[in-house]
């Protein structure tokens, strides 16, 4: 199932604002959308992994937040909080990034008159993220061979070293790749001055309407009638 890039942008904006500002129950309403869409893209494993980590963190946080858990416990609980609040945002962004093609995005943004000076750098980002993950995986391999693991005596003694070992080669390789990508783009004539055509057909379909209506409904419930769900829940229980 394919959504128009504009719908995805709308979804990302609504989802992020709801997830960041409303209680957890509402955010579940929101990140269910990208989760279902990812199932259509056959990303079963990702969705499963996401929900296991998310549910563990959210459940743990809800149960432990009012308890006195000591100093280390507080650290664990606050990590759970960060995970349960940030992960819904990552799944939304992951969906948008992985499912959007560069040319569709450029065409859709041109239709709503976003200047190319802004959209071209954004397309580089769409291309950049998968590359970064690919590089990070290769670096992870190299670290494993050297016997540097995330949890070991050595890394516990010096936790920043792990960050350094990961980041230094990553930064070196992604600056190089970023440069090569820009060269690839400019030698192929990508430029803000010329008008592009787009071969891919973009446009609104039924699925876009469904996502749009759903997002609007969540916004209404969240911001306009915030008591509605509470009433419903109390009547049910």
């Amino acid at each position: 199932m394919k959504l128009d890039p504009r719908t995805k942008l709308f979804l990302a904006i609504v989802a992020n604002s709801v997830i960041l500002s409303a209680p957890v129950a509402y955010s579940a309403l929101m990140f269910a959308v990208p989760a279902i869409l990812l199932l259509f893209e056959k990303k079963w494993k990702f969705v499963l992994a996401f929900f296991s980590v998310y549910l563990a963190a959210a459940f743990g946080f809800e149960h432990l937040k009012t308890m006195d858990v000591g100093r280390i416990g507080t650290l664990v609980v606050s990590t759970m909080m960060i995970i349960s609040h940030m992960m819904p945002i990552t799944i939304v962004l992951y969906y948008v990034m992985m499912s959007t093609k560069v040319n569709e995005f450029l065409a859709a943004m041109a239709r709503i008159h976003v200047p190319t000076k802004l959209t071209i750098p954004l397309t580089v980002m769409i291309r950049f993220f998968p590359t970064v993950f690919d590089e990070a995986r290769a670096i992870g391999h190299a670290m494993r061979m050297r016997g540097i693991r995330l949890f070991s005596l050595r890394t516990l003694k010096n936790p920043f070293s792990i960050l350094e070992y990961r980041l230094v080669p990553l930064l070196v390789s992604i600056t190089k790749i970023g440069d090569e990508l820009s060269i690839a783009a400019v030698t192929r004539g990508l430029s803000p001055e010329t008008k592009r055509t787009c071969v891919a057909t973009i446009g609104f379909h039924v699925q876009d309407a469904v996502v749009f209506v759903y997002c609007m409904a969540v916004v209404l419930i969240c911001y306009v009638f915030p008591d509605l769900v509470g009433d419903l829940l109390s009547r049910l229980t």
Partner: protein
Amino acid sequence: MNISLKNVSFSYTDSLDDAVISDLNLEIYSGECVILAGESGCGKTTISKLINGLIPHYHSGTMGGDVLLGEKNTADMTLADISRYVGSVFQNPRSQFFNIDTDSELVFGCENLGKPREEILQRVDGVIREFRLEHLMGRNIFHMSGGEKQKIACASVAATGPEIFVLDEPSANLDLKSVADLTEIVARWKKAGKTVVVVEHRIHYLREIADRICYVKDGHIAHEWTPAELEAKGPEYAASLGLRCMNLKQLGENCHPGAEGDRVYGSNQDDIKFNNLHFAYNRKFPVLDIPVLSLHRNQITAVIGHNGAGKSTLAQVMCGLCGTWSQKRKARKYGAYLIMQDVNHQLFTESVLEEVLLGMRPQNEKAALEILAGLNLEQYAYEHPMALSGGQKQRVAIGSGVSSGRDIVVFDEPTSGLDYRQMLAVSATLQKLAASGKTLLVITHDPEFILNCCSNIIRMEHGKIAEQYPLQGNQGKLIETMLNA
């Protein structure tokens, strides 16, 4: 379309005193195929960037003289204008795609030119048929082999129909079969009357197509030959200029110096056995299926085979980087150490010495310095690894492998993109390593390199070992299988 470079000088800094290109004059005529050859760092890539407009429009620096495409001066054109006339293909297949899927990549250039939709679809259809890409459509570029990517790169540049093609070491990451495909592509362009400029030190695949070979040294054209003239001067002459072998078939027949003799680097003659090297993403299609792999100790074994034959997977399983949990655990204890193709991935620390100490148990600075001395790196012990040259970085990575105490070291294409001299240097390092008691397995597409230092050959096919034989006496067979694979 003619290309003329008139009194061109260029420096990447603000002053022409440290110019990479100085007072260069070069005329390339319409319909010609010209190779710019030369050792790494001679300025040949800079010349290609002058032609495709990256200089002066992308790289900053100081430029003198004029570069003309037909009648137009590149300095007065924009990069988008230049891209209508000049199509560029680069060395690294990984980062020359702006899209993640092949379909979008093929139309990308045409879309940027703003051509009407129907015309684009028509052109792309033509290109797909011409390059026989049907089976590659709709694929994710992260799941494609280097040869496949390079083919898509050529096709997507060809789709815009430029008059001039500039290729910067396009064969560096390819197996010989993909190189043969590349030959065919360049031949087709030449036949269609296009001008083709190829920056390369591997000339063998263009020897029947190229009109001229311009040898670049210190930023100017030092020699100019036709391929036949260069070949007549003999392989030693080309090697002395840092160029790779001109004729691979001949290489197999009368073998380069150093290829004779049974190479034994160490005193131990027993075999090392690896059992159960299996791996599959999907149970029906095993990527790797080797019940027993036996390697001669203290020798250098070359692993050859197509892109996608399972060579890299073999390396990863042997090094404990993929496979089941128990495979990984076993490999961590007895496994091999991998020197990656992109060594930047495996250098983490702030100094070369620290890099070698990192995997050492127990850490011993004196021993680490000895390892570095063995690799001619002692003077760089306190430098940052990222500040070193490519070859030096590779040696640092080897040092980290030696210090990890593992007996088997696996190399993933250690000589891709290297000129003759650099290749000899790598070969010498590997021979030294084998003599010091390590057993080496080298994944490679480089026949010259194999003839130079390997003693055993393993050919892989569909995740299995198709054959295993000693190099001695089989040189001709080796070259033949590599060419026809």
